[in-house]
């Protein structure tokens, strides 16, 4: 029965990186043939506005959902959450675990003790998988299969949820799965060329009438509510009206597009490291978990880089944007937390763990 199908959404890379496109196409081709999955392709998650067809589609998926994207799973999860695509975090076994050293470290839950958490989370799982963790399409296809098996065991629960209080479009979608943004798999055409070659950024198919509307690159903060404690430092710090407060008095990234491209300032100010800029080059800011391989420590300070605290950096970055806007730089005078230095004190003793882990390893 169609309802048993798990929905897989493949979110495309920004730009036209041929290797990335190729991987996407291989995965999509295989999954579209697979009988037990329902595969769709949407533009890059982070770039879609909330009323983009791709997001509307994502919101309409009722059951378990697998999202393949070029983002760290945490970044993908909270980007979706903000757009109203909510669910419990499903655990993918496909992770970046190249560096076995790290696995010696105690796996800590990133959730901070006083975090406010996500609200209105339905009883279903969203599995976010980072497409950068493997080069082979098969790895992703296998993982989709594994999750799909795991998920079909829970179908009864899912049915209850659906029967319980289905929204009309959800039920519709559930009973008549349609290929809303179905990728037209680029069968190699006469010239053996890939049609996507000439596409605009983010659009998937040239002559398809289902062509999703194009997206442009965006830049804005994404809050991880499993870390955020609602302390309001970000809203005090940002002078560009990006943050707001919802009707339950929770911090919210309200005006995403007010944010200044490239500016990651508030992420440096957040005492919980809850603010993610999925497109930032520093993995820790882009939403990598501490354990992720590829996240390397920057020892430049140790070897003599001019030392600046995160706050000093943030203030500098903010001043640059203020001046660019024709406003006055404010330096440390506005919206800077009083407690400054203790900001860095955290309950987590990662270095000790690191060192001890390494000792065990040797």
């Amino acid at each position, binding site marked *: 029965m169609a309802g048993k199908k798990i929905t897989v959404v493949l979110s495309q890379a920004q730009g036209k990186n041929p290797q990335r496109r190729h991987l996407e196409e291989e995965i999509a081709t295989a999954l579209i043939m697979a009988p037990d999955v329902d595969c769709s392709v949407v533009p890059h998650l982070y770039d879609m506005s909330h009323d983009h067809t791709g997001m509307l589609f994502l919101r309409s998926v009722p059951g378990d959902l697998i999202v393949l994207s070029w983002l760290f799973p945490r970044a993908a999860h909270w980007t979706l959450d903000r757009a109203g695509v909510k669910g419990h975090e499903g655990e993918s076994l496909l992770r970046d675990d190249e560096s076995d050293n790290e696995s010696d470290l105690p796996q800590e839950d990133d959730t901070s003790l006083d975090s406010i958490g996500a609200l209105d989370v339905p009883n279903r799982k969203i599995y976010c998988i980072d497409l950068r963790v493997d080069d082979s399409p098969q790895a992703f296809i296998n993982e989709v299969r594994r999750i799909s098996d795991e998920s079909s065991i829970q179908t009864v629960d899912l049915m209850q949820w659906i029967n319980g209080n289905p929204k009309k479009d959800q039920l519709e979608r559930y009973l008549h799965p349609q290929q809303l943004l179905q990728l037209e798999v680029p069968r190699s055409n006469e010239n053996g060329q890939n049609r996507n070659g000439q596409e605009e950024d983010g659009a998937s198919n040239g002559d398809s009438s289902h062509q999703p509307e194009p997206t442009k690159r965006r830049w804005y903060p994404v809050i991880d509510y499993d870390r955020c404690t609602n302390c309001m430092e970000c809203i005090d710090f940002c002078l560009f009206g990006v943050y707001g407060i919802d009707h339950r008095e929770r911090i919210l990234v309200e005006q995403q597009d007010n944010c200044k491209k490239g500016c990651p300032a508030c992420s440096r100010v957040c005492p919980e490291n809850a603010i993610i800029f999925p497109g930032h080059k520093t993995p820790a800011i882009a939403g990598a978990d501490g354990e992720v391989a590829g996240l390397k420590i920057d020892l430049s300070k140790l070897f003599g*880089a001019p030392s600046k605290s995160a706050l000093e950096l943030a203030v500098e970055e903010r001043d640059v944007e203020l001046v660019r806007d024709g406003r006055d730089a404010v330096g440390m005078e506005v919206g800077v937390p009083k407690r400054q230095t203790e900001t*860095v004190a955290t309950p987590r003793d990662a270095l000790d763990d690191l060192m001890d882990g390494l000792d065990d390893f040797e």
Partner: protein
Amino acid sequence: MSVDLIFPMGKFEARIPTDRVYSSNHLWLQETANRYRAGFTSYSVRLLQDVYFLDWVIDPQSSVRERQEIGEIESSKALSTLYAPFAGIVRAFNEKLLDDPSAINTDNYGTGWLFDFETDAVPLTPEAYVALLADGWEETQRTLKGQFQ
């Protein structure tokens, strides 16, 4: 051989030999003829772990300012820009490391040396370097922790 000083990093003991001098950016300098040979201290190597890649962005015989960027290093644990320890002249690099930097891990105080350097600056004594490590240890841990989050 002179007696080494030891700086404890968690369970690891960083060995700081007393037959040479040090810079605050964690290099050792050993006087040879009219210049110094420089390399990573055990403290640096401990934080770096296995070095994969080393690259210099200046040519040999370049005059450098104190803290000028001179290279890049990548290891299993870290990425870092490298900086000149003092104002001076970088005379030569350890060519062997460019193909295979593993000597940095296996013999950091010997064949894993980085470059030959001329300077008029007065480097730190081993004792002063160990004191500096002790002073900076809290801060280093905090910096690293911040990056792990």
